[in-house]
């Protein structure tokens, strides 16, 4: 392959030094420097050193069940074509023709035997190998070696319980090693049923004028915003005539963070989610819960509720039984494209699926009554950070600082639900991955890295 991906952490050509980047996040004092949301050079480093090296969500297994099924996604700003192979494996490659850089595939999803570039007609097989060049004999005099001119392929593609991830970096640890203690929490979403999960059709895509980390960070651990940001949506969900002061979430819960940068937060006891209707609630609190208890044990079913989470860097999940997954695609330091989907337990009866589906559409989607107030806040924050005074004024990320603990029920670093432990560890990993030359220079327990 004449193509290569620079997977060494490289900030030598940047205006930023390691010390400068480390100074942006002060987890001893609990402060953030707003430039992490606006600086163009930091953004370029993120694309190269974080998105270019980490494991990135590509698709749910059930989106591409058959050979030739494909789904077009992004890693950072790179378009990636994700394709099911004849042997059942999944390949991913840069969606870029090696002749002049045109997109090889221009549709969002479908099934194909080959992919042909619309510019000069170079065509590629399902694994991204160049298999035909028009006028190869006459124009290239048979001197072009097709095997040299395929697009870069993802070095590793692996699945965790239905979710397919890929990385450009041949030196990246295995996916399960990368996920580390996060798998314990991911199972709360993914392993409740012996039948696994499935993705519903369609993808919500919309654009917010704000930095991707605002969303990724909020899904790490921010239970604190819910009562205030989402007050109107919560009041609207109350029964007719109810006292608006009842629109409040429980005040007991926990949050998790880890050296790998993943995080989640959750309430300690199930709470009513009346929006899904009685039939769905009967299933969720009945047979669905029983099977989940059998498979996951009491802690992960009865002591984790309403969980939001982020898999570093930009993949988030929310809910259980039926849940939304979303990728916060970076589109410049001041723009994010949200891609969200709905995942349901494969064992859920159709009527229940439809009720849960509608509830997610109505709460977390472009029109979602909860989500619209989040994107509103993030968009305004981004505008505030245009100011130089704003950029030189530190932000408070100190909630619960110094109160982290170990908890025999939950792996990783644990804090009270209303804290910022998850965000602090997310940003700790962020600066580490921006500056570490190799995986061995990162602190997380990545035992497989040789």
């Amino acid at each position, binding site marked *: 392959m004449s193509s290569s991906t620079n997977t060494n952490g490289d900030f030598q050509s940047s205006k930023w030094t390691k010390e400068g980047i480390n100074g942006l996040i002060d987890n001893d004092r609990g402060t953030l420097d707003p430039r992490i949301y606006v600086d163009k050079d930091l953004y370029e480093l993120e694309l190269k050193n974080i998105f270019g090296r980490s494991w990135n969500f590509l698709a749910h297994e059930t989106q591409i069940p058959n050979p030739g099924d494909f789904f077009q996604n992004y890693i950072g700003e790179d378009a990636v074509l994700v394709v099911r192979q004849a042997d059942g494996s999944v390949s991913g490659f840069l969606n870029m023709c090696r002749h002049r850089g045109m997109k090889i595939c221009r549709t969002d999803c479908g099934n194909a035997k080959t992919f042909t570039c619309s510019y000069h007609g170079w065509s590629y097989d399902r694994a991204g190998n160049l298999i035909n060049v028009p006028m190869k004999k006459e124009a290239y005099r048979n001197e072009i070696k097709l095997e040299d001119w395929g697009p870069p392929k993802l070095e590793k593609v692996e699945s965790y319980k239905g979710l397919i991830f890929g990385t450009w970096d041949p030196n990246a640890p295995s996916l399960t090693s990368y996920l580390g203690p996060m798998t314990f929490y991911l199972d709360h979403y993914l392993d409740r049923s012996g039948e696994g999960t499935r993705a519903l059709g369609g993808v919500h*895509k919309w654009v917010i004028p704000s930095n991707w980390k605002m969303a990724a960070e909020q899904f790490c651990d921010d239970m604190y915003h819910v009562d205030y940001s989402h007050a109107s949506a919560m009041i609207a969900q109350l029964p007719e005539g109810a006292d608006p002061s009842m629109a409040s979430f429980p005040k007991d819960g926990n949050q998790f963070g880890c050296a790998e940068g993943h995080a989640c937060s959750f309430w300690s006891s199930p709470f009513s989610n009346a929006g899904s209707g009685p039939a769905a609630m009967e299933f969720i609190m009945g047979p669905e819960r029983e099977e989940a208890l059998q498979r996951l044990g009491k802690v992960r079913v009865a002591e984790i509720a309403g969980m939001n989470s982020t898999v570093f860097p930009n993949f988030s999940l929310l809910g259980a039984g039926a849940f939304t997954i979303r990728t916060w695609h970076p589109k410049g330091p001041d723009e994010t494209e949200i891609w969200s989907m709905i995942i349901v337990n494969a064992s859920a009866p159709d009527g229940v699926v439809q009720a849960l589906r509608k509830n997610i559409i109505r709460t977390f989607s472009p029109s979602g*009554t909860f989500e619209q107030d989040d*994107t509103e806040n993030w*968009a305004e924050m981004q505008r505030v950070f245009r100011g130089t005074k704003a950029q030189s004024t530190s932000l408070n990320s100190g909630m619960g600082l110094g109160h982290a603990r170990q908890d025999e029920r939950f792996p990783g670093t644990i804090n009270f639900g209303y804290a910022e432990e998850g965000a602090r560890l997310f940003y700790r990993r962020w600066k580490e991955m921006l500056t570490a030359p190799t995986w061995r220079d990162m602190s997380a327990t990545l035992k497989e890295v040789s």
Partner: protein
Amino acid sequence: MKAQAITKSIQRVELALHHEVEQFLYAEARLLDNRQFSEWLSLISEDVVYFAPTRYNVMSKDPDNEFSSGEDLAIFDESKDSLSRRVKKIQTGRAWSEEPMSRTRRLITNITATQSAQGELLEVTSNFIVYRNHLERTVEIFAGTRTDTIVEKDTHLGFELERREIIFDQATILAKHISILF
């Protein structure tokens, strides 16, 4: 869900009825522009279907896969109850996506109206452009088409909305959220 192809010859309603249908759509749009949400809700049937599919970028040989189905993701999949809760959210005064208030202007055009064989239900298609301006300089423009089923009823505008399918002409929604109704 497929955009409705024009396959049958259009059986136009009488001029006077067509005029009434047009005036209904204009008045309804004006209620939303004026933030008279409770009055708007009173035009909505208890059994309303209010649906907007998501869209994919597909090749012309693959038109059946352009729109999400009624069992897939959607931009809207609403009942009278959920529409009422959307209105209630806005009316709390704490819906930050609409506080401070946005400014909207709905342009409703290309109206056609046909009558069902039974004569009671009217199928009405219309195109829309909705301009939304918010805060200092947010501008969002939504374009699309709607297929409505309406019926003559003793609402204050003379008709009731039974069904509305909204097709947005965007695959990626170019807005930070959709906090308004169509």
